[in-house]
């Protein structure tokens, strides 16, 4: 049924594409949200990805690779949106993250620690981590989604995990109760 919908959408059937879009929009949005870490930008990227998918669908040669092809599109849209964000927000200063309160639960502390660790990675590292650990994509699938050789995907994934591990370790070594840089006590 899925392949049939893709074929119909390739021939210009908008209803078929709408059915496909309904089935994938939440997943695309989740991927974009995790990569971009910004709700508004994730919505933009998701919308752009759906429109690009519709436009370029006739160029998809293997209909059974529709999902992998979509992943490539959403990654590309996230990259584009992130570039635009850097340009637009030059004049807007982001507020610093509030320092962790001492009575936080372990779950919240774990969340903050991982979020802080992810923020220290490059966008390429964040992207490959999301694709691998959220979508469970294998190295060959990562390579396809990112348009890079398989060896590069394996290497990038390894170094991304290692960078995150190092960031988490550095965070754990930091003594608690210290006010974040730039904040008055």
């Amino acid at each position, binding site marked *: 049924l899925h392949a049939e919908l893709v074929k119909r959408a390739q021939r210009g059937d908008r209803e078929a594409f709408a059915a496909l879009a309904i089935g994938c929009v939440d997943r695309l949005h989740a991927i974009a949200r995790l990569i971009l870490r910004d709700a508004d930008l994730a919505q933009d990227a998701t919308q752009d990805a759906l429109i690009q998918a*519709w436009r370029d669908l006739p160029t998809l*040669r293997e209909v059974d690779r529709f999902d992998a092809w979509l992943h490539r599109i959403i990654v590309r849209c996230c990259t584009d949106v992130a570039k635009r964000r850097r340009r637009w927000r030059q004049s807007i200063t982001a507020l610093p993250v509030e320092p962790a309160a001492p009575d936080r639960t372990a779950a919240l502390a774990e969340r903050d620690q991982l979020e802080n660790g992810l923020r220290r990675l490059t966008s390429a590292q964040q992207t490959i981590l999301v694709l691998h650990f959220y979508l469970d994509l294998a190295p060959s699938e990562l390579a396809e989604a990112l348009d890079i050789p398989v060896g590069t995907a394996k290497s990038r994934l390894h170094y991304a*995990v290692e960078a995150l591990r190092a960031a988490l370790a550095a965070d754990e070594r930091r003594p608690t109760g210290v006010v974040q840089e730039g904040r*008055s006590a």
Partner: protein
Amino acid sequence: MTAQHEVGRRLAEHLRREAPDRAPTWVLESALEIIETTPQRRGLLRLPWRFPSMNPFARYATIAVTAVIVLAGAVALATGGHVPQIGGQIGASPTPSASPSPTPSPAPTASPAAVDPTSVADGLITAWNTGDAANASSLYAGLAPVLDFAIDTPVDGGAFTDEASTLAGIKTRMTAWQAGGSVLTRTGTVLTQGPYAVFPVKWTSTTGTYDGMELIRISTAGLVVQHLLFGVTSTTGTSATVNGTTLIDSLLTAQNGSDGNAASALFAATAKGFVFQDSMLVNVVPDKSHFVNAIGNGTATGESRTGNVLTQGRFLAFPFSAANGRGFQIIELDPTGKIQYIWHAIWSNLPATSPPASGG
């Protein structure tokens, strides 16, 4: 390796917790709406490109063919579109052409890369910040003359939608997040700032003919993803007078309100007669901070208006900045120039507070 696996396990759990379950409904709806008028790309030539099945011979052949095409194109461009004949002239001799001037040709008088913030490029579009403005023609091309949508997400609880006005001469006022079946006419200048563009627009719907402004947001792919219409129907003309300046379908330019032209008078009027209050800002669309709306009077804090002013009838569009972002301020006046309504469009959801000074 164990440490890496542990990090991976923690990350996987974290991502599953953090991933939103559902996308906002407007994302899908808006995408499908755009797709309704978006054609698919259908390539005439479908060459294999970076597929696993592509053998080295095919890859090199593709590269060679592409190189030849690019080279031929470059030669054609360098020769002014005349591709040189290969192997000498055959048949009739070419038509005599004017001989080239022995004097060197003058240098170009203007560089398109240098955009004056107050210049009107292409006669249609005004760049506020260099790089913000796209080609005006492409902006117009992206807008369908008939918008097939229904008014939804009533602005401020519906108070602004087809509101009966008590103001003399104005029958109804419309603010539409989206409008159904309206026929829009867009002419004149486009004012852009960031991902937003403002068009002077007139439109006809079942409730009347409106004059006003159309605000659009353009996605990173260059597609129009949101519309917001502001307009009124009027029985006493469509212009207003501010400090002796009659506003009607014009673009006024100013730099910092100090060049003494009509826009400066508007800015001065803004300072003297128009008062704003940040606390009036409310979200037009729940959970979306792109558009905020203000109505009423108050004391301005943290707002500044510089640059160009776009006018249409009784509407003014100012590029403005506030503590919580940059965007447009669209103002509706009464015929005497008294401010009636103020709308803001910004693209930052940061709170209207200043970040703490670094270094404690």
